[in-house]
Structure formats: structure tokens, C-alpha cells
């Protein structure tokens, strides 16, 4: 059995090694895009059951974003929703025999964490400008700037590690049990892995949303500087 920390390179595109995780990611992308295209082809004013289910999903996501951030969900819906959907489908792709979920690999989770890191900067600058975003590091006071900067890195690192650890461990445990106990024994563990995948996708999306919201709010409502207060 290969180490779950190692990526199996299937082939190379020039200098770029294409691993199974990347290939699976592409397949997930195709499934998601084609599925989304097929599901959203005929959206009408009077919804079918399919459209009602889609709208329920979007409305639930909007509600989550609104309750978490207190802001309108339009700017964040695409990023947060896609993040949740991709991680969920990637986690659940372990159900397909012979497929390891991309999120069980370091590169995928690190890429997702990097995207969250970048999105925090992007939405922070978009919400409060460059100055506002930089001032967010001075909240609640400038003495916290080093800690805040360190936190901005460590929190996404913790997300990355959490997602990777949970998914990888699930795959690893199921692999060990399947190799030891036979065909039907891993099924309860696989069901638990499904729940874990769902919870991890939810946690990742919610944390990303919280980080973005914190950056936007701190940039928009940065406290007055002590010098101004003394003056």
C-alpha cells in the first residue's frame, strides 16, 4: 500500500506531472460543470421539482452567508458555494471504487487553503481598499499586527491540515480495514466517511466565509488610531 502522503504521477504534460488527484479533479470539474449546465438549462418562473431543489440549495447557502456575514450573499456565493460543492464531491468521490479523493492529497488541500488565503486578501481589499485591508491587521490595536499577520497564515494552514487529516485518515482507515476484514466490513466506516466529508466541506466553507467576513468588516470598521485619540 502506498503512503497516502505520496502522489502517484500518471503522466506528464510537458514539465507538469499529472497525478491521479489532478485527473480526478478534472473529472469532478467536468461532472459539476456538465451537471450544472444540464440542471440550469430550463429555469422557469414556475419551478419544477428539480429547479426547486436547486433553488433550495442556493437559498440555504445564501441564508448561511447572510447569517454568518450579515452581508448580501451575492459577492461570496460563487466562491463559497463552489468551494463547498467541490470539497463535498471530492470527499465523496472515495465511494467510486479505485478513486482516491483529491482532498486526501496535500496539494489539493494546500491549493484550497491558498485560494482561501488569496480570497481573504481579495475580498478584504475590495471591501475596504488596500488601506482598509492593511488596517484590519491592526485590530483591535497595532500591537496585534504581528500576531494578526501570523494568524492569517496559520488559520488557513489549520484549515488545510484539518481537511487533509480528516479525509486522508478516512481513506487510510477504510483502506486498512478493507485490506484486513473483507468486503462488507468497511461499509459503516465508509458511511462515517461520507458524514465526515460533508462536515469537513461545511467547516471549510464556513471558515473561509468567516475569515473573509472578518477581513471585510475589520477593513471597513477599523478602530481609530491611538495617535488620533491622543490628538
Amino acid at each position: 500500500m502506498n503512503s497516502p502522503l505520496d502522489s502517484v504521477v500518471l503522466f506528464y504534460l510537458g514539465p507538469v506531472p499529472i497525478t491521479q488527484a489532478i485527473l480526478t479533479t478534472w473529472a469532478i470539474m467536468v461532472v459539476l460543470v456538465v451537471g450544472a449546465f444540464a440542471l440550469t438549462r430550463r429555469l422557469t418562473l414556475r419551478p419544477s421539482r428539480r429547479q426547486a431543489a436547486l433553488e433550495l440549495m442556493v437559498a440555504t447557502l445564501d441564508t448561511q452567508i447572510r447569517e454568518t456575514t450579515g452581508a448580501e450573499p451575492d459577492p461570496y456565493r460563487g466562491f463559497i458555494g463552489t468551494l463547498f460543492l467541490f470539497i463535498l464531491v471530492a470527499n465523496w468521490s472515495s465511494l467510486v471504487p479505485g478513486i482516491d479523493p483529491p482532498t486526501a492529497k496535500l496539494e489539493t488541500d494546500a491549493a484550497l487553503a491558498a485560494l482561501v488565503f488569496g480570497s481573504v486578501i481579495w475580498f478584504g481589499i475590495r471591501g475596504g481598499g488596500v488601506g482598509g485591508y492593511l488596517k484590519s491587521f491592526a485590530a483591535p490595536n497595532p500591537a496585534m499586527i504581528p500576531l494578526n499577520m501570523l494568524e492569517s497564515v496559520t488559520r488557513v494552514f489549520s484549515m488545510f491540515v484539518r481537511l487533509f487529516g480528516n479525509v486522508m485518515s478516512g481513506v487510510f482507515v477504510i483502506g486498512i480495514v478493507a485490506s484486513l476484514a473483507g468486503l462488507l466490513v468497511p461499509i459503516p466506516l465508509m458511511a462515517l466517511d461520507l458524514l465526515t466529508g460533508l462536515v469537513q466541506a461545511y467547516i471549510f466553507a464556513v471558515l473561509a466565509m468567516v475569515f473573509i467576513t472578518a477581513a471585510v468588516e475589520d477593513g471597513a470598521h477599523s478602530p481609530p488610531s491611538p495617535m488620533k485619540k491622543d490628538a
Partner: protein
Amino acid sequence: MTIDWWGLGLQAVNVLILIWLLARIFWRPVAGAIARRQAAAQSMLDAGKAAQDKADAALAEVTNTRAGIAAEREAILAEAKAMADAARKTALAQAQQKADALMAAAQTTIARETEAARKQNAAQASALSVEIATRLLAKMNTPAVQAAFLDLLIDAIAKMSASDRAALASAATRIEIVAATVPDEAEKTRIEKAVADALGGAADLHLVGDPELIAGLELRSAHFVLRNSWQADLARILKEMKDAA
């Protein structure tokens, strides 16, 4: 454990592309459908509210109109009542006037009829009185009364003018001395002689009886009558009473 940086970058690009694609073909269309439905529902609500407002306005207008109709009805009723009152007063006044006129006419008629009845009663009373007197006086036709009437006749002849007396005495026609009862011959002769003497001539005198006289002596010729009886007196009294009534 090593990090495949190519893999990390490629996965980041993959997820970015997926975010971009799903944002365009999934999240926006579905959110747009929700927004369109919300807009449609809002427009329906607005239309419903507009219709409600319109209905409320129409209801208010109808209420106002109804209030106006009620006020107009009240005004018309008040006007009709005033007209009816005026007409009633006019009719009442006219009726009162007619009633007064009728009452006046009736009073006049009553007064006239009362007067006529009174006159009739007076006439009947007079006639009754005369009848009673006639019956009473009929019982009093005594020689003394007869003698008194003879004296009255002589006196009346004496009071006549001489020419009338002469004309009466020389009349060719017969002169009747009318008494209530024909006395005996001696008395008859005495009466005729006394009358002839009063006339101063040899007139053709004849004493005749007429119970209608009750009592008394009268002279009657073809062209002359000298009343001297209770009948004549009662007739005169009756006439005077009638004239007085």
C-alpha cells in the same frame, strides 16, 4: 513527504476555473431565477396592493357618494317636508277660510231661518191669539157690547166728512148695516134709525147678519165699507202684529 508545487498550482487553477465556471452557469442563473421569482412575486404583490388601493379608493368614493346620496336624500326629504308643510298650511288656511265662510253662511242661514221661524211662530202665535180672542169675544156679544158698537158706528159716521156722509146717504145703491147676529125687529129698527140719523138722510139701509163680525156693526155699500167690529179690529191687530214681526 514532499509538496508537488506543480500539482498545487494546477489544483489551485483548477478550482479557480471551477469557481468561475460554476459562478456563471450555476450560481448566477439559479440566483437570478430566485430573484426573478421574487421580483415577479413582488410585482404581483405590488399589483395586488395597487388593486387593493384602487378598490379602497373606489370603496371610499362609493362611501362618499353614498354619504352624498344620503345627504341629498335628507335635503330632498327636508325640502319635500317643507313643501308639504307649506302646502298643508295653505290647505289648512284655505280650509279654515272655507269653513269660516261656510260657518258664516250657515250662521247667516240659521239666523235667517231663525228669523223666519220666529216670524212664522209670531204669525202663528198672532193667528192663534186672534183665534182665541175670536172665540172668547164670540161669547161676549151682549146687547151692551152691541150698543157700544152702535155708538162707535155713530161716532165714526160723525167723524166722516160731510161730503162723504152726503155721498153715502145719497147713494143709489143699497147700504147694508152688517151685524154679527140679526137682532129683533125693534132693535133692528132702532139701529137703522140711528144710523140713518147719523148719515143725515134717507138712505136705503138694510140690517143683515154676518157671524164673521163676532160683534159690532159695519156699513157696507157697493163702493164703501165702514169697519166697526171685533173682526175688523182683530184683523187690524193681526196685521199690525205681522208688520211688527
